[in-house]
């Protein structure tokens, strides 16, 4: 589903991803863990096509489509979703309007019919409630006045409504208290499906106590240093990232 090969990328001439290769098969949930500065967020932004993230080599394809050749909004329409570590506030544009515009823009890009206002609102209410937010929240400006936890839950509501093929969740667990973490984890588990792949980028093991990934990859200095099954998380928690670097060296 998501194939990344020898990806080299950086910011302002500084190489951060250093020949990263990763295959995320359809229906699987993988986790990428790694210390600060290892390139986790750079990977997320490079995949999504953020300005300033320059690809200097390698490839990334979603369902065989070359992602790196597309504009950010085209990548989204192709099925890529990025859950942001720091969701942005957009005063004046309501969550409802924002998300309906997004869903319909994606549908148009794929040649599908737009969703009606009624169907959209019904679906949104359901998802908002599933993530412990209300329609009052949804009528406010995007993320305006939301707490850190509410912003992250809003990222999950958007993911549920957009129904991507591949979701990259960039530290969706950071800044969450234990209750919010459970809500988000349950959400990820609910959005797991045989035709959707999820890449969880995380700093800590704790999210993986609730969401069991199929594979865990450890990112060090811009490439995958080691990969393993879910048991790798506990090992990392015990030994720390340094042990991995020693092993890799």
């Amino acid at each position, binding site marked *: 589903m998501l194939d990344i090969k020898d990806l080299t990328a950086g910011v302002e001439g500084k190489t951060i991803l250093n020949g990263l290769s990763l295959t995320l098969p359809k229906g699987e949930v993988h986790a990428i863990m790694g210390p600060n500065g290892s390139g986790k967020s750079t990977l997320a932004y490079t995949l999504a096509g953020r300005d300033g993230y320059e690809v200097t080599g390698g490839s990334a394809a979603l369902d065989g489509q070359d992602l790196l050749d597309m504009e950010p909004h085209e990548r989204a329409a192709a099925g890529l979703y990025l859950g942001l570590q720091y969701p942005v506030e*957009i005063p004046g544009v309501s969550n409802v309007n*924002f998300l309906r515009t997004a869903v319909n823009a994606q549908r148009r890009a794929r040649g599908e019919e737009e969703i009606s206002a009624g169907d959209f609102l019904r679906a949104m209410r359901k998802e908002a409630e599933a993530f412990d937010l209300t329609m009052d929240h949804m009528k406010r400006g995007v993320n305006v006045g939301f707490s850190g936890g509410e912003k992250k839950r809003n990222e999950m509501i958007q993911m549920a409504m*957009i129904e991507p093929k591949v979701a990259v969740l960039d530290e969706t667990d950071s800044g969450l208290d234990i209750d919010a973490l459970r809500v988000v984890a349950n959400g990820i588990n609910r959005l797991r499906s045989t035709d959707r792949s999820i890449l969880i980028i995380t700093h800590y093991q704790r999210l993986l106590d609730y969401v069991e990934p199929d594979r865990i990859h450890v990112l060090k200095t811009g490439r995958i240093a080691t990969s393993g099954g879910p048991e790798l998380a506990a090992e990392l928690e015990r030994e720390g990232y340094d042990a991995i670097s020693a092993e890799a060296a």
Partner: protein
Amino acid sequence: MSERPTKKDEAWRYADFDALKEHWPDSADRWETVDVAAGETKRELVRLLPDPDLVSDVTRLKVTVGDGGRYELFALAARSRYGRLEIEATLGDGAHFEFGGAIIGKARATNEFIVRVNHEQPNATSNQTVRAVLADKATGSFLGKVYVARGAQKTDGSQSSKAMLLDRTATANLKPELEIYADDVKCAHGATVGELDKRALFYMASRGIPPEIAERLMLQTFVAEGFAELGDDKAREALEADALGVLEALR
């Protein structure tokens, strides 16, 4: 007839003089008067829509609001070459003056709001909100002055002006000004000039919203702030729709 203004006249310093001279003094050197009787409310909407054949369009209003009266003016200025709306309002005891405006310009257009509110009597309030969206080499100006006379205690005047530059070649001149001779007054003002939030644009793109729609959505919201105090929903929506039409033609 008065002499044609020059750059040295503070209230005209950002005007398009080439455009102005074609119409001076015929249509430009003329004040319309508006009288709002004590206790009455009057609302006016002004639309200066794009018109490639119109070189300059100057509207000047002298407004007098009686005690306890209320005057509201909402304006969209988007002339293709030069549009100017100038208001001088003098308020009675406890009167209110509300001005909400949006400037949208592209190419070499110059549009400006010149507002002077005279708080001559106590207890009057005034509020001015201006938003400007400027592309290419367009100029948008707001010169807003609040004058509070010596005896005009308990005056409450506020001004908010913000401009969004879509290109680095565009120009915004925002000049909120206070001249206060009374000591028990509240006057707030703010002015900012900025560009579209790139993080917000990326966020929208990451959700599949194409850049032109994302930009329009943000500008639409921004411009609508200029009309937020217009209480009549229908009138406000119509003005917003006109503004959206102009925004859509910007790019």
